[in-house]
């Protein structure tokens, strides 16, 4: 098992810089998720760690050893690909034992380790099949089995669940989490799905345009997003974000509506400053239908027209119009609503976020 360090890591293709000098330290046995929209450089970063892409500048250390120019086989890592990349001409058993065969391990040892991994992943009955005879979920498990058998220092996952349907994805997510608990190794997991990142990772690295926006525990990135981008990216449905101007203890929005300036931000903003106001759907709720958190003094009420509702059974997402925009709110204990109904909405400003309109960084002290 091992730590992983990225030091000022840069990737350039010809003159185009894709990854701009990122720094990251992954602790031993930590589960790190790299998350971000497509094209943010997360997969490239993972491939550089794997040794499948050359690095243009900076350094990568695995277990304290600089591996910049080592080929993938010398890094003692394993990787689960988005496409699974199972060898179609080999059976499941051969697929899983391939790395050991290449390493000239004795047959008995290969047999033992393949069986052990198969037992962990419940693949025993599939060992003689070929990949083409397996379902998507089974292929996924074989790909993980192939990774485990190697007993690597670091596991790399490249969007491993994105080819599965929604139900299977949830199921495999749980399996990956269990697996990590069992094999206890360092994991770097790339995904564009923030739910996957939140549920699996010890720490999340949010990337955008080749930069790291924030590194933190799921709780940190959810509750204290460092930037407007993180605020919008993490959480489902996403945070309501609207530009506003600070004006005499109030936030004034483009179309004239206003909200009180949240108390926690008062020392950090100046009159006339342009900001972005953010409020999660959980903190904006039809009055009496939310989780009442924080001081009542911090809850601001307003009567708003309903634009549309999305019933989810145990809750309903209510889109209500405020200052010319639809704001999404989460309604617990839902009651039926129609488009055009006017309802009382509570803005829990103790949970609000403010970001600088200029830099996008949080204005939290």
């Amino acid at each position, binding site marked *: 098992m091992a730590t992983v360090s990225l030091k000022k890591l840069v990737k350039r293709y010809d003159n185009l810089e894709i990854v701009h000098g990122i720094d990251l330290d992954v602790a031993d046995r930590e589960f790190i998720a790299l998350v971000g929209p497509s094209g943010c450089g997360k997969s490239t970063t993972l491939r550089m760690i794997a040794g499948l892409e050359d690095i243009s500048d900076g350094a990568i250390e695995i277990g304290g050893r600089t591996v910049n120019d080592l080929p*993938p*086989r010398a890094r003692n890592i394993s990787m689960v690909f988005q496409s699974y990349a199972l060898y*179609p001409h080999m059976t499941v058993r051969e697929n899983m034992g391939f790395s050991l065969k290449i390493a000239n391990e004795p047959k008995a040892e290969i047999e033992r380790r393949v069986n052990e991994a198969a037992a962990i992943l419940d693949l025993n009955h599939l060992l003689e099949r070929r990949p083409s005879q397996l379902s998507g979920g089974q292929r996924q498990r074989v790909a993980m089995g192939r990774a485990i058998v190697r007993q690597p220092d670091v596991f790399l996952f490249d969007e491993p669940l994105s080819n599965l349907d929604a139900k299977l994805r949830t199921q495999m997510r749980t399996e990956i989490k269990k697996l990590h608990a069992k094999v206890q190794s360092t994991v770097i997991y790339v995904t564009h799905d923030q739910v996957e990142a939140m549920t699996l990772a010890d720490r999340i690295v949010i990337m955008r345009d080749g930069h790291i926006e924030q590194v933190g525990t799921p709780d940190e990135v959810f509750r204290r997003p460092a930037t407007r981008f993180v605020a919008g990216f993490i959480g489902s449905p996403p945070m309501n974000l609207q530009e506003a101007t600070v004006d005499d203890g109030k936030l004034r929005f483009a179309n004239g509506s206003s909200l009180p300036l949240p108390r926690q931000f008062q020392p950090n903003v100046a009159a006339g400053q342009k900001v972005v106001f953010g409020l999660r759907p959980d903190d904006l709720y039809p009055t009496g239908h939310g989780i009442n958190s924080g001081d009542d003094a911090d809850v601001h009420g307003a009567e708003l027209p309903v634009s549309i509702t999305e019933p989810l059974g145990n809750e309903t997402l209510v889109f209500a119009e405020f200052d010319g925009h639809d704001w999404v709110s989460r309604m617990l204990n839902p009651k039926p609503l129609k488009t055009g109904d006017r309802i009382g909405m509570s803005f829990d400003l103790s949970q609000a976020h403010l970001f600088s309109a200029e830099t996008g960084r949080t204005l939290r002290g």
Partner: protein
Amino acid sequence: MRDENASHRLKRRLLKLAHAAGLFAAMTIICMPGLWIVLSSLRPTVEIMAKPPAWIPQELSLDAYVAMFSGVGKGGIPVLEYFRNSLIISVTSTVVAIAVGMAGGYAFARYRFRGKSGLFLGLMLTRTVPGIALSLPLFFVYARLGIIDTHFGLIMAYVALNVPFTIWLIDGFFRQVPKDLAEAAQIDGCTRWQAFWQVEFPLAGPGIASAGIFAFLTSWNEFALASQLTRSVNSKTLPVGLLDYTAEFTIDWRGMCALAVVMIIPALTLTFIVQKHLVSGLTSGAVKG
């Protein structure tokens, strides 16, 4: 409703019948010349030359085959030497063309380099030049080099003829092998070279085999260049050997057909053997569904 279904069923059956009839007609046209050669090798020249053609053979014999193998001077030709030449030249040129084709095809499929598309286009353009147009220049060059009437000369010519084609075909098959597989193999501990032989080569195998068949058949059947560049039993191939049956005033059609049959058999056998390995869709299941 019932009538509607019945009429559709009838329509479908008639269509099926029409398909079968059409297929039979097409196959007859394709197979006829081959069957005619086999038939002609077994009947006397009078019958072969008969006008209108005698469709039903009156007498069949293996005389032509017996004569062919009975040695020079007794109506025979050095068929074993020709066969040996054909085999050496075809197999060697095929092996070389496949080796070069694999290296080239892999490079085109996997690597980015300057002038790639231009180079590829250039290779394809060489296919547009009819081989026979090159025979005279080639003859002069070979004469200067002193490699007329040698195995080596003909092998060189056939390699040049086949390489653009094998590169093009094998490139296509390597493209179908997902790149992820070679990367997964490298992570599993393979060197680039091992990843190629352990994973990419077996998966592109059927494609390489079909490129091999094409290259072999081209070399095996080629006549125009071979007739220019060979002289004697040292290097004459079977297609050129057919000319031994033409004399100043006569042509032994029966003997020629018999030799043609002897030529066809190994090619046919090889195709059947390799065809079994041309399993398509071997890569299915590698990635995604």
